[in-house]
């Protein structure tokens, strides 16, 4: 996999985690380079979201290592992950519904005044700036995010991830709840962030989404890695075969889960 010689932004090696005897992730290795989009594919329950939650600090793996820029990284809380520049847009969005957009974007990383109080004015001003870039129609800065539409909530979650200069962005089913126009907007954003040199893990069960955006794909089945491939080297049908049958085509590098 390390053909072009650059140090991966993130490398997860032999990651395993079990819940109550069931191996949700079993010896999976994936990596991500700057400006690269890697699609993580697999059925529901294949272990994609669990793998990604280990990288974002929500779960601690039972075994395996994570390397950031070639150096061993100890990620045991979401705070640790954020310190390494790893930001996540969760499938559930993970927004506090009773708090406004600025409160959510800065949650856990509030801007304070010199007196140690919340600097709401600065946070609102920054929120207006970042939202102007993501969603120019957005006006409801003072309302709890519960009152927002699905697309608006999504842009708040994206704003939270990109505001703090992420180097690695994890997008877990980012378009699952969106209409066609909004899906296109997320796609445009992915390409723009890619140009800025950010590495993106794109998790989806929709193979068409991923083929349009990703440079490489990694496929998981029953917690194991079936294989990884550059998208030019494989066809959509071959990737479908990886997802459904666990069959690794000749253009891909097989993993331990290949049948």
């Amino acid at each position, binding site marked *: 996999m390390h053909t072009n010689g650059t140090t991966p932004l993130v490398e997860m090696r032999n990651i395993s985690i079990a819940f109550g005897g069931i191996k949700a992730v079993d010896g999976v290795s994936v990596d991500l380079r700057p400006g690269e989009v890697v699609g993580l594919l697999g059925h529901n329950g294949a272990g994609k979201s669990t793998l990604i939650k280990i990288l974002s600090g929500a779960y601690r793996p039972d075994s395996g290592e994570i390397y950031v820029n070639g150096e061993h990284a100890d990620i045991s*809380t979401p705070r640790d992950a954020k310190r390494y520049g790893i930001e996540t847009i969760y499938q559930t969005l*993970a927004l506090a519904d009773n708090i406004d957009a600025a409160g959510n974007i800065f*949650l856990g990383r509030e801007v304070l005044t010199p007196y140690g109080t919340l600097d709401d*004015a600065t946070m609102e001003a920054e929120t207006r700036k970042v939202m102007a870039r993501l969603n120019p129609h957005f006006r409801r800065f003072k309302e709890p995010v519960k009152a927002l539409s699905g697309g*608006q909530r999504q842009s708040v979650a994206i704003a939270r991830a990109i505001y703090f200069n992420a180097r690695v962005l994890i997008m877990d089913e980012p378009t699952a709840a969106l209409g066609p126009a909004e899906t296109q907007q997320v796609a445009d954003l992915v390409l723009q962030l890619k140009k800025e040199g950010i590495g993106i893990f794109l998790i989806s069960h929709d193979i068409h989404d991923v083929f349009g955006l990703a440079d490489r794909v990694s496929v998981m089945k029953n917690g194991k890695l079936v294989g990884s491939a550059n998208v030019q080297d494989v066809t959509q049908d071959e990737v479908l075969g990886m997802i459904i049958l666990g069959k690794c085509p000749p253009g891909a590098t097989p993993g331990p889960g290949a049948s």
Partner: protein
Amino acid sequence: MTAPVATTAPPPSTASGSLLSKLEIDVRMLGMLAALAVIWIGFDILSGGVFLTPRNLWNLSVQTASVAVMATGMVLVIVTRNIDLSVGAILGVVGMIIGVAQVQWLPAYLGLEHWLTAPLAVLIALVAGGLIGLFQGWLIAYLGIPSFIVTLGGLLVWRGAAWWVTTGQTVAPMDTRFKAFGGGVEGALGATTTWIIAAIACGLIIVGLGLSRRRRLSFGFPVRPGWADAVIAVVACGTVLATAAIFNAYPMPMGSARAWAEARGIAWPDGGLFISQGVALPVLIAVLVGLVMTFIATRRRFGRYVFAIGGNPEAAELSGINTRWTLMKVFGLMGLLCGISACISTARLNAATNAAGTLDKLYVIASAVIGGTSLAGGIGTIAGAMLGALVMQSLQSGMVLLGVDTPLQNIVVGAVLVLAVWVDSLYRRRIK
């Protein structure tokens, strides 16, 4: 994102709706004030004009103080989707501890009526209450025991401990300076002090409104129209000054006034002297607690985290918030406030009894809920809970004035609680 429908459709607004929205006044809060007005005027008519007298309103304010202080903490507890059933029992055991401290422990070192007794007693109350709260919070946050169970157990444990401190004996009397915390003659601050406090409060209201307006303007955010800010300033300052005037219109009882005059070498005229009570110390403490708690809940990072945890615990955790430590602090704060209330009620009773605060948990929870705190978590205001405490106490003391039997009082209070929550849920469904 590119769907302008959701963003540009203006909400249908009536004339009164837009007026209220210009003033940025919470309609819910307005409803509570209206309910309070109905209760007050109703009782005044039924009691033949006794309810709305300075004397009764002064007493009402003192009676509300203890529950109001605890209700501010209960808001944060309920906002995090928890409950604290042990507040009355914590009040009981802390009251017992400071009673014994004043009557037995401290006099052994300081002698009776030493000036340090009262401050030390308050310190002991704060430390004891805070530690009990932190301990319960630790059980809830770090061991994962549901707060309902921990505080239900705590209710029995601390009530038992209160009995155990003196094997059930009542401890009395309290230190004279300490008695000021209960109001009464010792705790009445007098007319001049009351006017000074009112003036300071008005000054802070005006400065605060001006600063927040200037700050929003400096960032180019939309602000309220100037007249709306002016109306708010006039109403707020008017309320403060009217309250001060009412408190000052209540004179000391003849006997106390004579003692007061003699202590200051003032001749006692035949017609007696009109010496204003002014605001009572426990009421001032409750108001200050309310302000500090509002500041903590809305201006501090801790408060933001408390509400985030209530809104979505998983999101709070994923944002990197230390949710366990935050939760433990919430219960610690609740215990601390129980300590303050223990000072107020022990001083007011001039005795520490193991039954103090027996029904307080219900009044405290009811105040918070009537004040708009949602049991589903994430929603609630400190001011609402304090207003809720005033509503509860108004009902109770109004019924006492009318000579309603105790069992009937409880029936009415219980029914009002259920009714209030029902009306609130109707209101919330309509605004959605």
